[in-house]
């Protein structure tokens, strides 16, 4: 695999190595593979990047005790459960602070501009897309165009417009949501007719 050179050990190998040597470095190496995932997961549940960062560290610190106690078949799903439980526990701790975990994912019926649907449908989508693009504000439009139509990366767009990557990401995300709403509205209108 391109992203994993031959020499790289599998999760199971690293885990076995850790259990044998009790070397935190090995466990760190394993955890780092899923650091982004854990961090993202925590961000979803805890809603603040600060809390997510702390939680990701706390989960790592608790890992040795848990790894030694349990027999882990597959590290990744196990870590998912452990991390999720940690976040839910955190939420339970501050019960009085009502935390609503919002599901921010786009609904699945939204067709991604590059989805491999049939061409006719794609063309229809494209028309709507072009129409809706005009309804976006200037910043969102620029970012969406650069990202989806010119296939630039966040970074490239950020450099071009001298914004931060975060800002670009935000504009693309919001632009996309607006596009989706716009297209759905168009479809709904069409259906009415």
């Amino acid at each position: 695999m391109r992203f994993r050179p031959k020499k790289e050990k599998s999760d199971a190998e690293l885990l076995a190595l850790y259990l044998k040597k009790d070397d935190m470095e090995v466990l760190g190496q394993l955890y780092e593979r899923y650091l982004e995932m854990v961090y993202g997961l925590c961000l979803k549940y805890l809603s603040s990047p600060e809390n997510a960062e702390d939680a990701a560290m706390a989960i790592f610190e608790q890992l040795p005790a848990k790894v030694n106690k349990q027999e882990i078949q597959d590290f990744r799903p196990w870590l998912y459960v452990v991390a999720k439980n940690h976040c839910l526990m955190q939420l339970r701790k501050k019960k009085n602070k009502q935390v609503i975990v919002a599901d921010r994912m786009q609904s699945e019926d939204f067709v991604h501009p590059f989805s491999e649907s049939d061409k006719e449908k794609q063309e229809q989508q494209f028309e709507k897309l072009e129409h809706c693009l005009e309804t976006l504000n200037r910043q969102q439009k620029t970012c969406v165009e650069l990202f989806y139509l010119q296939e630039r990366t966040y970074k490239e767009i950020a450099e071009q417009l001298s914004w931060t990557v975060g800002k670009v990401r935000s504009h693309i995300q919001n632009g996309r949501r607006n596009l989706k709403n716009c297209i759905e509205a168009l479809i709904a209108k069409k259906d009415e007719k």
Partner: protein
Amino acid sequence: MKSSAYLKWLKQWIDGSLTARDEQQLEQATREDAFLRDALEGLQSAPEEDHEKRLARLRKKIQQPEAKQRRGRIIPLALRRIAATLLLVIGLGTIWWLNQTPDNQGISMEEVRPPTQTEAAAEPEAETGQQELTEALPEPPTEEPAAVEEKSAPPPAPEPTTRDYELDEVLTDEGIAEEAPPAITAAPRMVQPRTSPALPQASEAFPLESLQGQIIDMEGRPVAGAVILNQSGEQEAISDAAGNFKLSALASAPDSTYTVQHFNYQDTSLRLKDSPAEPLVVAMQRESPSQLRKTYKRSKVSQPVPVGGFDYFRSDNQAYRAFFTNSRLKRNPITIAFTVYPFGEIGNFEVLSLASDTQIEQVSEFLQNGPQWILPSGVDSLRTQITIPVQE
């Protein structure tokens, strides 16, 4: 789906190198992967955040597990202090015991006690050797009563020293001494400190090879809380409220240099050629004001752990009031932190708030001549922090 692929996209989302095509694949992958979906949702909930920075910081922490340990150091520090104190006490106790051995071992040791220093090292061997002897060598008839007595050992009946020589001779003659040592190992030594009342007595007196002294300043006033360090920088003793200190274990290093340190005084070195019979008086020179200032600044950086205890100290407020309320000059409260040791001695103090040189001097005087610091029971030493009103 190979996990490394979407991990790469996730990383690209974070570092900004994601393209629309990658994004599509990433989102496709989230449909069948709850972990990934949660992760992406979380990240998308804060698109403007610099996640890269946070992750880099996390990565750094994970790669240095020591950093993690540093977080929980507050309690271990206290524990370590207790451990160090215990070690010191046990160490002193052992030294005391070793010194005491001749008088303290009771008759059994008296009997076998060899006359010279070099033979003293073989004492325990001789003791057990003798026990074997009683069984193996009944031939010398004079020996038997002594041996029996030694075994039951209740009445303190010191034997004539001539006996010792006889015993020694028998031992070496028969060659049992060579067989005995391996069987003994360190057992007698290990057991003795526990059975002998070493701990309470260790702090009372060091009969031999120890040195008592007093630390005073140039005006002859006692300096409390001065720390006496040995050559390797380990703390050997602390002067008490009257400036008195005791150094033990001089026998192991008769020609050694000690350093006497105190926050308000210049470091003074103390060289011992051999243990003088009389108490030693060490005079310390006051630190110059500029030096004080420097120390104060440095000490402000190290944050002491605020421990309970102030209320306890303040309850002894007769002295406190006598010290602070009989002047009408303007007073300004400053906060100091210091450690109290078992006999009310105090260690170096740190000034935690902004203070002038005169205030620091007052604090020093207050700590030395102020109330008697008493530790709550069951505590070896206590780091405490108090705020006192001193003249500006």
